[in-house]
């Protein structure tokens, strides 16, 4: 389908929020031929009309931390199912981690991700390249060739870049592309055998612990390395109170450091592991109530400028294992909006425009991708959110191939209603969109 075939879409009566332009007002949004049109639209009849009264209309959400498992673990997720899961969560662009089998550490591997993303025609898929060859943490991967293949950032996520010398070189070398090095911050020697946060709960349950200090120490080290190199450092899935403080201090000193937080790290604590349910097993682990509070504080004061899910699907048979043998992680994309509403918006920690900023323009700028705004002429990636609808999270309805979620059965509020990617309606909750006919409201 060429661009000419893309319909003219009118989204009527929604609360348009675009933090990139400082917009927050009720009005119509027009889309034509894959682009956002200037206010006032066009002098032609819209082919598709979407009634957005009572709903939020915002730039398509961007999740810069997802695991799509392809190639290598297609039983957990494929690029197509992961990108479909993204749409169901209101996310129009994802950046996927390179910890696949084989890892994304060459130009060809990055191009494979791009191609599979295009074939899927769901959310936009951007590959993140590995920092080191084979993610072994020994030598730099071919970062320049990865960029040529479409990589938008670098990380060895799933594992940290433990070697300080290599991390330093990565931060230096990546400056020539102005791309960010993302780090899964953890001192590996301190987390051997760890299943959950180390502390009172792990002691009581007899489970191996991962101390908060394992994260704090790596965050401190890497901020210092970012300082001496001038490279761009991004702290992935920040989870401890001290780490948040370190990022705050680093920013105050003018160091190029950013951070992301995941919904599970601000909605759940290590007490959840008392159920011995592997759906609460993540890495970094669920921390204490004090850490959750600090992460929320960091989100409020802007220390943490990005929300990400760390979407980590695992097939049922893998998560049904004993706690120490089950893999880390949860399906994140499809619960992003409601968990954020429940833990950040409803208690009054953040407003909708603040949340949308952390899910649109901030990640877009971090990745240097031309997304995240409703500016006239921008790519027409739009998410319509029904912020008031209540629903029950039911993993059997997930579009992800996997079902591992700690939120099954939660009564929540807020959900993606319509998702448009590149000017094409690719997901609707409210019903089938027929050309020229407005779908029923609600």
């Amino acid at each position, binding site marked *: 389908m060429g661009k000419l075939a893309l319909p003219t879409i009118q989204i009527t009566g929604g609360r348009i929020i675009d933090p990139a332009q400082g917009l927050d007002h009720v009005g119509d949004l027009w889309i034509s031929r894959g682009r956002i049109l200037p206010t006032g639209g066009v002098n032609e009849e819209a082919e598709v009309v979407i009634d957005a009264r009572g709903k939020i209309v915002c730039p398509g959400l961007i999740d810069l931390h997802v695991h799509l498992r392809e190639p290598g673990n297609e039983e957990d997720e494929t690029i197509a199912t992961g990108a479909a899961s993204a749409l169901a969560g209101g996310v129009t662009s994802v950046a996927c981690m390179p910890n696949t089998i084989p890892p994304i550490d060459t130009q060809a591997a990055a191009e494979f991700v791009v191609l599979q993303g295009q074939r899927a025609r769901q959310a936009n898929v951007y590959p993140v390249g590995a920092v080191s060859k084979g993610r072994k943490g020994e030598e730099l991967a071919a970062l320049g060739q990865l960029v040529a293949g479409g990589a938008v950032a670098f990380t060895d996520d799933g594992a940290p870049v433990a070697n300080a010398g290599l991390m330093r070189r990565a931060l230096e070398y990546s400056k020539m592309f102005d791309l960010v090095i993302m780090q899964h911050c953890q001192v590996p020697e301190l987390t*051997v*055998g760890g299943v959950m946060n180390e*502390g*009172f709960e792990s*002691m*009581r*349950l*007899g*489970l*191996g612990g991962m101390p908060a200090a394992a994260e704090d120490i790596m965050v401190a080290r890497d901020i210092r390395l970012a300082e001496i190199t001038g490279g761009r450092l991004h702290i992935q899935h920040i989870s401890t109170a001290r780490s948040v403080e370190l990022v705050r201090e680093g920013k105050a000193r003018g160091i190029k450091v950013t951070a992301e937080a995941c919904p599970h790290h601000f909605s759940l604590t290590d007490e959840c592991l008392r*159920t*011995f349910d592997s759906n609460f097993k993540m890495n970094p682990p669920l921390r204490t109530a004090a850490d959750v509070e600090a992460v929320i504080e960091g989100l409020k004061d802007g220390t943490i400028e990005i929300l990400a899910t760390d979407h980590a699907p695992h097939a049922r*048979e893998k998560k*049904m*294992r*004993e*706690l*120490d*043998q089950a893999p880390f992680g949860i399906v994140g994309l499809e619960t992003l909006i409601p968990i954020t509403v429940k833990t950040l918006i409803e208690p009054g920690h953040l407003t909708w425009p603040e949340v949308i900023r952390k899910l649109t323009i901030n990640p877009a700028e971090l990745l240097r991708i031309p997304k995240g705004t409703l500016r006239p002429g921008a790519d027409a990636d739009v998410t319509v959110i029904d912020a008031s609808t209540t629903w029950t999270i039911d993993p059997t309805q997930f579009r992800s191939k996997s079902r591992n979620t700690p939120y099954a059965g939660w009564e929540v509020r807020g959900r993606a209603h319509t998702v448009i990617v590149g000017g094409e309606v690719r997901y609707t909750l409210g019903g089938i969109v027929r050309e020229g006919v407005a779908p029923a409201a609600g």
Partner: protein
Amino acid sequence: MLGLEELSREEILAILDTAESFAEISNRSRKKVPALQGRIVFNLFFENSTRTRTSFSLAAKRLSADTQDFTASVSSLSKGETFIDTAKNIEAMGADVMVVRHPTPGAPHLLSQHVSSSIINAGDGAHEHPTQGLLDLMTIRKAKGRIEGLTVGLVGDIAHSRVARSNIWGLLKLGAKVILCGPPTLVPKAMERLGCEVAYRLEDVLPRCDVVNVLRIQFERQQGGMFPSVGEYSQFYMMNQERVRMAKPDLLLLAPGPINRGVELTPEVADGPHSAILDQVKNGLAVRMAVLYLLSGKLDARSPAAE
């Protein structure tokens, strides 16, 4: 029956009282009662323990149940088969009760969500070993006549010990004071939040203890390097004659087997007048009979014949 943390004080006392009455049966010449006739008790052991398995088997047999052992290491399960699959197969063979030993904390809890047989936790990693906790409580109560008000020292590798955790919950619920003593690498400070005292010098602790429970070093569950050498450990924490003399004259000494003689306690002390090690074994049988018997009441309640 997954752990002592979940049981109330009243439930623990009820089990102990039932166990006392079964202890009398063991003294009779005919040692069998028909309580579990027609029932099948499966010992599902994913970790070796001849002693605990034998004790459960014997307890089940004295209650006239049929018993069957299934022993496998987690790593020997055929590829792709989980221990849940294994348990479901065993349930399909008619198991009424599964006695589960597993190296992972929470494994019996996970199982209880997937099978409808009654599950008895026979030790899950470093988490709990409730029947061991109960038999220790029974041994203390028989020897001292009470538990409330006693000071009980748990010595050694607390961090990796399921026996310690079951003991702590049980002792605290029944009103004892608990002192945990060992090197700081094996006794997490966080344990104070459970309501225990944490101490590192055995000599400071011994004079205050009515009971000392000497725990085994869990070499298999440690990440290594928790203390410099076995020799150094013994130097600070081994119960020997000299240390026994520092304690109260009526000190009661417990040790959940198998003990490492010459590491946690000397042979003279293990076999000496303070030692209750063999009483523990005897009481273990009674406690396991009691637990199986009390569960059988629940089995009857759900069987069609009872309706």
